[in-house]
C-alpha cells in the first residue's frame, strides 16, 4: 500500500460480521465522512488535524452490514472537484472493492469513468448526511464507486434510509433496493440530449455513438430529445454551489478545530488570517464567488434557484416520453485533475452537473464509450427516486457487455 494515497489507514479493520450483506467487502471512504478516531480533514487545512468524535450514520450502517473499512483516501479540498484525487487508486490496486465518494459536481461518476468502474450518484435526499462534512448541501450526496453494479446495489441498500439524526431528510417513500432474482428485460427508450452533443468534439462524439450502439444492442431504443437550456445547468450549479459553499465554509473559524494562524492582534485578524491560510486557492476563488453572489448580487442566487425549478420541470417532461437519459460521463480534453480555475473545473464536470442540479439518480457505466483505449463513460439518468429501476437497467446493460466480452 502506498501510504501517500491514504489520509487514514485502518490497520485493524473490524472482522466482517457473519451474514452482513457487505461481509467480506473492503470499503474505502473519504476523510470528509466521520469515522470515530480517524483523521477527518476533508482535504482542507480548515480541518487540520480534526479527529472525528462520532461515526457518521453511513459509517455505522456500513459497519453493521459487515463491511471492512480499510481507511480514507486523500481528497480534493472539501470534496470540490477531483484535484489531488487518490480515490480510484485504492480500487485500482485491488485494496478495496467499494469506495464512497461525495458527488457534488459528478466526482464519483467522472472518477469511475476515468478508471473504468461503475459510479453511482443516488437520488438526492435518500442517504443520511449526518456526519458528512459537506460544502454544497442542496446538491451534494454520497456516491458509490465499485467494480460491479451488484456491489453498488448492496451498498446503497445498506446505507440508504431514514435517519433520526438528519433533520433535512424528506418524508418520502424510499426506493426498494432488494435485489431482483433476475435482471429485468431491458426494454425502453433512452433519450439523447441534442444540445449536449454540441459540447463534444469529433472523437468524443464517435465514442459516444459507439456506446449508444451498445445500449441499443442491450435492448434500449435511442431517441433524440431537446433540452433547450442545457447550458444553464452549469451556470445554475456554479451560482448556487458557490453561495452555499461560502455559507457552509463560514463555520471554519480555527477556534474549535482546524488551522489557527500565528497569534493575531485581535479577533477579526485571527479570522482573516486563519481562514486566509486555511483555504487553497481554488476553494478561495469559489468562496469569493459565493461571497460576491451572496452579498453583492443576491437576486442572482434566487434567480438561479428559479431556473433550477424550470430545469427540473423540463427534464421531468422529457421523462414522460423516455425512460432514461443517456449522456457521456466526461470529455477527454477537460481533465478535472488538471483544472486550476473554477471555470475549468466546471467544464470538466459539464456532463455530470445536471443530475446534481435536479437531484436525479445517475449511473456511470464503464467500457461502452471507448475511444482508442480511453473511456468516456456513459451515464444513464432517471427520475428522482427511481434509483432501483435505474440500477437494474445498468446491471442488464453491463451483463450484456460481459456476455459480449466472453464471446
Amino acid at each position, binding site marked *: 500500500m502506498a501510504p501517500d494515497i491514504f489520509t487514514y489507514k485502518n490497520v485493524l479493520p473490524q472482522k466482517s460480521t457473519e451474514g452482513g450483506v457487505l461481509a467480506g467487502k473492503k470499503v474505502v471512504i473519504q476523510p470528509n465522512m466521520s469515522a470515530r478516531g480517524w483523521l477527518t480533514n476533508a482535504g482542507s487545512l480548515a480541518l487540520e488535524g480534526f479527529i472525528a468524535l462520532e461515526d457518521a450514520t453511513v459509517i455505522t450502517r456500513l459497519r453493521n452490514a459487515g463491511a471492512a473499512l480499510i481507511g480514507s483516501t486523500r481528497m480534493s479540498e472539501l470534496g470540490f472537484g477531483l484535484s489531488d484525487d487518490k480515490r480510484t487508486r485504492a480500487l485500482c490496486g485491488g485494496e478495496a472493492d467499494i469506495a464512497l465518494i461525495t458527488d457534488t459536481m459528478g466526482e464519483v461518476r467522472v472518477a469511475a469513468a476515468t478508471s473504468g468502474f461503475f459510479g453511482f450518484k443516488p437520488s438526492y435526499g435518500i442517504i443520511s448526511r449526518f456526519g458528512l462534512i459537506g460544502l454544497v448541501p442542496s446538491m451534494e450526496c454520497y456516491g458509490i464507486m465499485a467494480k460491479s453494479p451488484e456491489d453498488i446495489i448492496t451498498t446503497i441498500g445498506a446505507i440508504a434510509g431514514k435517519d433520526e439524526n438528519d433533520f433535512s431528510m424528506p*418524508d418520502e417513500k424510499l426506493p426498494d433496493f432488494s435485489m431482483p432474482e433476475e435482471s429485468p428485460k431491458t426494454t425502453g427508450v433512452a433519450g439523447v440530449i441534442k444540445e449536449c452533443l454540441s459540447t463534444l468534439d469529433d472523437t468524443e462524439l464517435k465514442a459516444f455513438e459507439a456506446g449508444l450502439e451498445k445500449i441499443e444492442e442491450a435492448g434500449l431504443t435511442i431517441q433524440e430529445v431537446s433540452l433547450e437550456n442545457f447550458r444553464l445547468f452549469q451556470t445554475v450549479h456554479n*451560482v448556487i454551489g458557490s453561495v452555499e459553499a461560502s455559507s457552509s465554509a463560514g463555520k471554519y473559524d480555527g477556534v474549535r478545530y482546524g*488551522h489557527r494562524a500565528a497569534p493575531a492582534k485581535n479577533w477579526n485578524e485571527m479570522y482573516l488570517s486563519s481562514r486566509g491560510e486555511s483555504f487553497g486557492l481554488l476553494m478561495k476563488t469559489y468562496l469569493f464567488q459565493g461571497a460576491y453572489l451572496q452579498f453583492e448580487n443576491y437576486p442572482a442566487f434566487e434567480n438561479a*434557484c*428559479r431556473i433550477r425549478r424550470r430545469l427540473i420541470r423540463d427534464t421531468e417532461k422529457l421523462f414522460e416520453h423516455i425512460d432514461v437519459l443517456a449522456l457521456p460521463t466526461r470529455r477527454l480534453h477537460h481533465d478535472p485533475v488538471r483544472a486550476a480555475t473554477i471555470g475549468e473545473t466546471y467544464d470538466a464536470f459539464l456532463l455530470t452537473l445536471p443530475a446534481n442540479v435536479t437531484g436525479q439518480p445517475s449511473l456511470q457505466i464503464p467500457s461502452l464509450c471507448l475511444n482508442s483505449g480511453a473511456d468516456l463513460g456513459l451515464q444513464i439518468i432517471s427520475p428522482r427516486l427511481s434509483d432501483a429501476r435505474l440500477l437494474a437497467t445498468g446491471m442488464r446493460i453491463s451483463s450484456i457487455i460481459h456476455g459480449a466480452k466472453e464471446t
Partner: protein
Amino acid sequence: MTYHNRSNCGQLSLSDVGREVSLAGWVDALRDHGEVLFIHLRDRSGIIQVVFSPESTSREICDRAGLLKNEFCVFLTGRVVKRAKGTENPNIITGDIEVLARDLAILKKSSTLPFPISEKSMVAGTAIKRDESIAEDLRLQYRYLDLRRPTMQDHLIKRHRILKVVRDFLDEQGFIEIETPMLTKSTPEGARDYLVPSRHHPKQFYALPQSPQLFKQLLMVSGMERYFQIVRCFRDEDLRPNRQPEFTQLDLEASFIDEEFIYELFEELSARMFEIGGINLPCPFQRMSWQEAMNSTGSDRPDLRFGMTFRDAADIFIDTKYGIFKQILKRGGCIKGINVKGQSDRLSKNILQNEYAKEIVPGFGAKGMTWMRVLDGGLESNIVQFFSENERNEILKRFDAENGDVILMIADQSWALVCSALGQLRLHIAERLNMIPKDVFFPVWVTDFPLFEETEDGITSNHHPFTMPDRTDFDPGNTGELLTLRSRAYDLVVNGEELGGGSIRINDRDLQNKMFQALGLSETDVEEKFGFFIRALEYGPPPHGGIALGIDRVVAMILGTSSIREVIAFPKNRSAFCPLTQAPSPVVLKQLAELGLLDMGGTQALPGSKEQQDLIDSLSWVSRININATERPAVIVAVQDAAALAEIVNRHSGEDEPLFSVVTIANRTRTGTEARTSLLAEKGELFKNAPAIKGGYFKVASILE
C-alpha cells in the same frame, strides 16, 4: 353583502348592542374551541371579537370560518351583543362586547406570515409578548405586514396628526405651502448630493435638494412673505444608525421679521405638536448663547434635563504649586469642573482613578482628569495634598460641595478641548448613574453661533453662507477677525437633540458677495454656483429669515420611539438599503448608455477598476478570508466570472418561484431527547481538536486590539 354600511371594528361600543353590523378587515387572532370559533377582527380603527357558534351562525358559515387563518382579509355581518360576565377582555377597547357572526366572506387568503402581527391577546389577564428580536430587515422587507400592527398604524396616524397640526397652525398664521423642485442644482449644504443624470443633457446632472434653501429665499424676493413646506430632503452622508438618506423637514421662511417672531411662532407650534403625544412643553423656551452653552455644558446641543453644569475653576489656581495646573494656566489654559451631587458611594476611588481618569476621559480627548471626593467636610483625592488649604476651601465653595459629592475637573491649554471632554464626561456620568429624568422635555434655543469655523484649508460657514452676521463691517481677508463674528442663527434643541435650526438671512448683494469672498470663493465660482441667486438680490429683496425642523426626529421624540425608522412608512435600513424594494440596485448597460455615462471616465482609469479592488477587499472582509498579492489576480477573475454568471441567470430567471432544495423540506422536532450537555463536551473530548485552549475554554484572540 355590500361595503357601504360598513362599521369600524374599534368604534363599536355597548351602545351598539343589538345592532346588525357589517365589518371588514383582517383576522388578527383566532381561538378555536371545537364547536365555537372566536376571532379578533382588526381594521384600522381597532379590534372586535367575532364569534362563530352553531347556536347563532349557520353550519355553512361555521364551516367557512373553519378555513380562516391569521391575516385573511374578510367581510362579515353579525349582531353586536354584550359579553357574558367574566368573559370581557380588557386588552381591547371593545372588550365588553362581541359580534355573533351571521355571514362571512373570505375576500382574500393570506400566505404564512414571516412574523406574527397580532399585538392583542384574546384572553383577559394575558398579554402578547411581542418578540422584539424580529430582525429589523425582515420587518422592512415585509413592511406592508409590519405596518398592519396597531403600534405602527398608531405611529403613522399620529405622524399625520402632527403634520396636520403644523399645516393648520401655519395656515392660521398666514403661511402658504409652496412646492419647490426636486430636480435642482447642487446646493452648498456641506453634505454630498444625490445626483440624477439627465438624458436630455448628456453628462449633466441634477442634484436632489439637501434643503430648499435658495428657493425659499427666492420666494421671499418674490414677495410671498410667509412660506412653508413639508418637504423631502436628501443627503448622501456617512451612515449613522439614526439617519436616513432622505428625510422630511418642515421648511419655513418669512419676510419682515426678526428672531423674536421665529421664537414665538415655533414655541407655539412645538407646543401644539408635542400635545399630540400628550406632552406639555414648558413655554417660553430657555435661551442660551452658544458661548454660554459651551461654557456650561460643553455642547452646542445642551441637555438641560439634569444639572451638573460646568464651573470655571481657573482663577482658584492662579498661584497654585500643583505643577500640572500651573503649567496649563501659564500657557493661558482653562480649568473647568462639575459636581456630581451625592454620588461618592457609587463613584469609588477605584472607578474614578482606574476607569475614568485612565480609560474613559482620555477617550474623550483629554490628557487627564482630576477627581475629588467630598468627605467629612474635606476633599479626598490622590492629588489633593498638592493644593493649598485656601485652594481646597475655594473648590468647596465654587462647586457648592457637600459631603458625598464628587468633583471632577479637566484642565487643558485648549478651551475647546476642556469643554468637549468635560461635556462628554457629564453625559457619561449622567447616563451611568441614571441621573436623567424620564418623560421630561427641556427645550432650549441656542443662539449667537460663531459665523465661521476654522478648518485645515481656511474657514468655512458654520451654518451656510446666507446667514446674517452680527455686524457687517468686517474685513473678508482677516481670518482672525472673521473668527470673532457671530451669526444671527438659532438652533432648537430638546433634551440634547437638535430638532431644527435657522437664521436671519443676508438680503444685501454686496454683503453676500463679501461672505463668499471671506469663504475664499473666486468670482467665477460664485457666478457659476450662485449667480442666479446674487442677481435676485439686486431686485429689492426684503429682510427675511426662517427655520427648518426635522420632522422625523420630532415625531420620533414625541412618540418616544427607539429610532426614526419607526415613524417612517418605508424607511431605508441602517445601511441606506431598502430591503423591501431592494434599492439601490444595478441598472442595465442600456440605461447607462442612454444617459451617456458609459465613457464618462475619459482618459482616467476605467470606471470599475478601482471599485473592483474595493469590491475584492470588501468581500475578503465580509467572508473573513485574507488573500495575498499572488492570489489576488485569480480572485479578481473569479469574481468577474461570478458577475457574468449573475448576469446570465438574471437574464434567464423566468417567473418560477425559487427552488432552494429539490426535496420538500420537512420540519421536525427531535423526539424523546432532553436538552443536556453533550457527553463529548463533558468528557472534554471536544477540546481535543482545538488548536488552542486555556483552562476550560477555547482560546481566541482578544476582541479588540
